[in-house]
Structure formats: structure tokens, C-alpha cells
């Protein structure tokens, strides 16, 4: 990449912008081909769903569908941010521990602080502080990566370790439980753990970030950097600023996910979120985003997340042995990515 003369690179970047709107112009059929994995998995799920005592398919029960959506929301929200980072050609391994940190912060602020203000303000401030912590970790990642030019894998591996230590230190290694009563922490957990709130957050954030990626200059910069950073640099794009924003946004989303995690689990847990980063990366990649950066979409990531959620659900509904479940998932991830790639090639 570095050997190519700058002029040629410049030419390719300038030629690129038409591609950013390809999503809108491409015929519907090619969309279907790209996301062939999801309908396939849904068909399989329908075919193998066990029947409820009343005779219907358990998979299609409204409660089961909302179970799936609720279960994928935390990873789903994280993977939205991860999509932006991966599109720039980067990676963020710290999201799982950011989730743990944020869940610990919101729970300890709510349970261990004497707030002299109305509950709604105290809750908003606690949530805000937890999300802000996520943003700060993200900004740190972004600044070190963009300004000091250290590889994203190394930087976020380091913050992943450091933030885990920070979360454990803040909580003295204990989980902070939130009760079920009528006190303020309980109100917080009740308000933010409902299905409507959790699933709604995921849906709204997905739409907002899809628009951000496809309809804004920031989104175009993200793709351009991942596509060819040198060219983007010669074209005068604000590379550092864009990258820092992408990591900050990922931190923000992981932080918000941590808040939902605390509410849903009635607990701030410094040991939560183990391997969440890998699940988020898997969802992004299954959704057809290239780990090399440049190409991919939020819609793809949502599809990838759904595929993972539906697979897990249908295997569990059939009481497949846990070890077998892991092996099956591994095979399905590889097959899904391969099919997505084939779909893209033939599209």
C-alpha cells in the first residue's frame, strides 16, 4: 500500500464517493443476496423449532422473539460502535471491560452515594457518569491510536486490561447489588431493565448510527480512512479527529450497554463482559464488514447480531448440549461469513 505513488491514491479516493451511496442505488436483489445468512437461519429455526403444548412453534412466540431481541441488545449496541472502528481498519478490544466499568460505576454511584437531589436527577447523573467513563476510555484509545500511531490491537488490549483493574479497584473486587425495593437504585433498575427500554435502545441506536454512517460526511470519512488511509491523508481528511470520534463513540455505546447490563442484572459487576468484545467482533464480521476496513454497514452488523442470537436461541430451545452448542456455533460463524462473502462477490 505504502509503495503506491500518492497521485494514484488520490485519484482512487476521489473516485470513491459514488460508492458511499451504493447502498441506496443497488437493486434490492443484491441486498437480499448479501444478507442471505439471516433468512437461511430463520428458515432453519422455523424448521427445527420445538412445538409448545398448544401446538404452535415456540420459536415464533412473541415472548420468545422479544427474549432474543433483549438477549442480543447489549452485544448489539456494542457491535454498532465496533462497526465504525472496524470500518476505519481498527479494532476495539476494551469494550467488554468498559461495560464492566460502567456497570460498576452506575451501581456504586446509586448505592453508595448520599444524593441530596430528586431520584430522577440522581439517576440521570449516575447514568451520565457511567457513560462518560466509557467515552473517556474511548477517547484515550482514540488519542493514543491516532496521535501516537500505536496499533489499535495493542492499545485496546492494554486498555482492556487496565480498565478491568480500574473496575475491580473501584469496587474493591465485589459486586454491587441493586435491590428490588422502592429505593432509588431499585427505581433505576426497574426503569432501565424493561424489554421496551432495552430493545428500544437497540433499535433507535441502530437507526441513528446507520444514518450517521451512510448520510453524513463523518460516515464517509470513516470509510475512506479504512479503505485507504494514505489516500485519505493526502486528500486532507481529518484522520486523527475521525478516529478519535469513532473510538469515543464505541466507548459511549459500551458504557451505555454497561448501564443496561447493571439494570438488567440488578448489579454492578467488575467481572462482567468477559469475551463480549469477541462476540461483538463476530457479529460485525458475520454482517459482512471487512476486518481490513473500508467496507461494511450497520445493517449488516444488525443482521450478524440477529444471526448469532437466533442460532443460540434455536440450539437452546432444542436443548442441545452446551459443548455441542459451542462447536456448532463455530461452524456456523465460519459458514455465515463465507456465504456473506460469496453473496457480496456475486452481487
Amino acid at each position: 500500500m505504502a509503495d503506491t505513488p500518492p497521485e494514484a491514491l488520490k485519484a482512487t479516493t476521489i473516485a470513491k464517493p459514488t460508492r458511499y451511496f451504493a447502498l441506496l442505488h443497488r437493486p434490492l436483489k443484491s441486498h437480499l443476496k448479501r444478507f442471505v445468512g439471516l433468512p437461511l437461519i430463520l428458515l432453519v429455526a422455523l424448521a427445527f423449532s420445538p412445538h409448545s403444548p398448544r401446538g404452535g412453534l415456540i420459536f415464533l412466540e412473541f415472548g420468545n422473539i422479544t427474549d432474543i431481541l433483549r438477549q442480543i441488545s447489549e452485544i448489539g449496541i456494542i457491535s454498532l460502535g465496533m462497526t465504525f472502528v472496524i470500518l476505519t481498519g481498527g479494532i476495539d478490544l476494551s469494550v467488554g471491560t468498559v461495560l464492566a466499568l460502567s456497570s460498576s460505576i452506575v451501581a456504586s454511584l446509586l448505592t453508595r452515594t448520599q444524593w441530596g437531589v430528586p431520584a430522577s436527577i440522581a439517576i440521570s447523573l449516575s447514568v451520565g457518569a457511567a457513560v462518560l467513563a466509557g467515552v473517556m476510555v474511548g477517547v484515550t484509545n482514540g488519542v493514543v491510536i491516532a496521535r501516537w500511531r500505536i496499533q489499535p490491537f495493542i492499545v485496546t488490549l492494554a486498555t482492556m486490561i487496565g480498565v478491568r483493574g480500574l473496575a475491580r479497584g473501584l469496587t474493591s473486587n465485589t459486586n454491587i447489588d441493586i435491590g428490588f425495593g422502592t429505593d432509588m437504585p431499585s427505581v433505576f433498575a426497574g426503569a432501565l431493565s424493561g424489554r421496551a427500554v432495552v430493545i428500544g435502545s437497540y433499535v433507535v441506536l441502530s437507526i441513528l448510527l446507520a444514518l450517521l454512517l451512510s448520510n453524513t460526511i463523518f460516515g464517509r470519512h470513516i470509510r475512506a480512512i479504512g479503505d485507504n488511509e494514505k489516500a485519505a491523508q493526502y486528500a486532507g481528511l481529518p484522520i486523527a479527529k475521525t478516529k478519535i470520534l469513532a473510538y469515543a463513540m464505541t466507548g459511549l455505546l459500551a458504557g451505555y450497554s454497561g448501564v443496561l447490563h447493571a439494570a438488567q442484572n440488578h448489579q454492578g459487576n467488575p467481572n462482567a463482559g468477559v469475551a463480549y468484545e469477541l462476540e461483538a467482533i463476530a457479529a460485525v464480521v458475520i454482517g459482512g464488514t471487512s476486518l481490513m476496513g473500508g467496507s461494511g454497514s450497520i445493517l449488516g452488523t444488525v443482521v450478524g447480531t440477529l444471526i448469532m442470537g437466533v442460532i443460540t436461541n434455536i440450539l437452546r430451545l432444542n436443548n442441545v448440549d452446551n459443548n455441542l452448542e459451542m462447536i456448532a456455533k463455530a461452524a456456523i460463524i465460519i459458514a455465515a461469513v463465507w456465504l456473506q462473502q460469496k453473496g457480496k462477490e456475486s452481487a
Partner: protein
Amino acid sequence: MSRRVVYLALVGMFAFLPACHNNQGAKKYFVAFSQCNNAEPYRAAQNQLMEKLFQQKGNVQLVIADAQQDNSKQIAQIETFIRQKPDLLIVAPNERAPLTEVMGRAMAAGIPVICLERDITQPNYTTFIGADNLAIGKMAGQFVVDSLNRKYGKPQGKVVEIRGLLGVEAEMERYNGAHDVLKGYSGIKIVHEAVADWLQSNARERMLEILRAQPEIDVLYGHNDPMAVGAYLAARDLGRDKQMIFIGVDGLGGPAGGIKKVEDGVLAATFYYPLCVDKAVEIGEQIVQDPNFHPDKQYILKPELITSENASQMYQKLTF
């Protein structure tokens, strides 16, 4: 390879699913067990015993889901079980607060719920079957006092403690119970405490350092058997294993369990922390068979001291 082959392979993979899901024939009861973490030896022993006992009943289809020590995963698995409407749901909660709400939902769906070994923050269960770690800690403390009395004729000596994962309830209670007893004896000094996260390998490493720092040790108390064994291995490496006794907790059966280590003379004692499963199967069976049966709200099972005197007998009883 064409895409079609991959499609076929995927569909084929699912084709075996219905085979795992067999409920034809006579009325079979469907019992779902949500286990917090199969990877711990204690939990694995619970699973084995439960499979064995329900298999003996003959009319029970048992499904065990492993939450891999993840609250969110366990909640998701219980949600799936609620959809499947089992005749009985047994839950070994990973942690108190996070599992409380979903177990309440299972109860609301009309599924009898047995809460196993770890209590939750609200009584969202039909019955709770558990054991008492604080009592184990106290028994361990008393055993330390008695052995030092035998060794020196009075309660004095130096104790090293190897702790499990900090912040975990079993660790705190096994610690506090022992300290409640030991603090009554001014001659007994706890000269070193190390944290080894329940792991034999960690305990061995920590103990090597401790042995360098402490020229005299009389008793090593490990919060579980593997850590006590790890400490023993370190002491043996340095030729000091005969200078002290090693005591552990859990008292699992089988060749890898702590009882075998007592029989082998590695551990002076271990404390059987009840698996709770035999009681759960007994009560669970009554719940599914007899709609009018109302179990007690809780059953707390007693720990047992295992020494060379009763080790072979306990080994028989607790090896499946």
C-alpha cells in the same frame, strides 16, 4: 465447494436436533437444570449426581444448561426454559441479585422452581436447598485448634491461609467462619494469607513464596481442596511437607476429589460441602408427582468433617 454444499451441511447439522429432543412414550417429566458453571469441579459433581439420580427414576428427561459463570447467559437460558415449560426448574444461581428477577418470572409462569445451593435476594422459588459455608469455616477453625492442641498440648502455632477468589461469598464465609473461631486463641497466629482464586496452580506458586518467607508453619488452611493440594505440592518440592498439616474444603468424591487426597495422606482433613443435589431430587420428585405436596421454604444441609477415619466410607458414598 459450492454454496449449495454449505447450505446442505448447515441444514444437516440441525437435522440431528430433533433426535436430542425425545419425549415420546410414557409420561416423562421434563426437568430443566440451569447450572451456573460446569467448569468448577463442585458443579461438575452436582451435574453427575443429578444425572445419575434422575436416570434411576427412569421417567425423567433432564436437561442441564451451563451458564459458564455469566449472569446474562444464565438469565437467557432460564428464559428459554420458561418457553419450554418444564415440569420442574432447578437453578443453581451464578449470583444472587442478577438471577432473582428471572426466577420470579419462572414462578409466575407456573413452573415449580428449586433454588440450589446459593440463595437469591427475594424468595422467588418454591424451595431453597442449600448448605452453610460459615459453618464450614467454623469447623475448619475448630479443627485447626484441635490439631495444634494435639501437637503442642496447647492452642498455639502458625497458620497459613490460602483464599479463594476475593469477593465471592463462599470465600468470605469460609474465611470469616475460621477467623471467628481462631481469634479466640491468642497463641494461634495467622502468619500469612494469600489469594489463589480457587486454583491449584496458583496456590502452588503462592505457597512457594510463602515457604521462603515463613520458616515455621504448622497448619495450612485452603478454602478448597485443590488449593490445599497445590500448597502441599510446593511444600513437598522444598521437602517441608512433613512439618505441617494441610486442610481443605469441598470433600468431593472420585479420583480427583479431596476425599481421595485424605485417603492418600496428602490432606489431614477436608470438609464435605453438601452437593445439595440428592435433597433436590428427593424434593423435586415429590413436587412433580404430588400437586398437593408443599415443601418447606428452605432446607439447610450440614457439612461433614472427613479425616482418615471416615475417608474410605465417604469416598464410597460420594463417588458416582
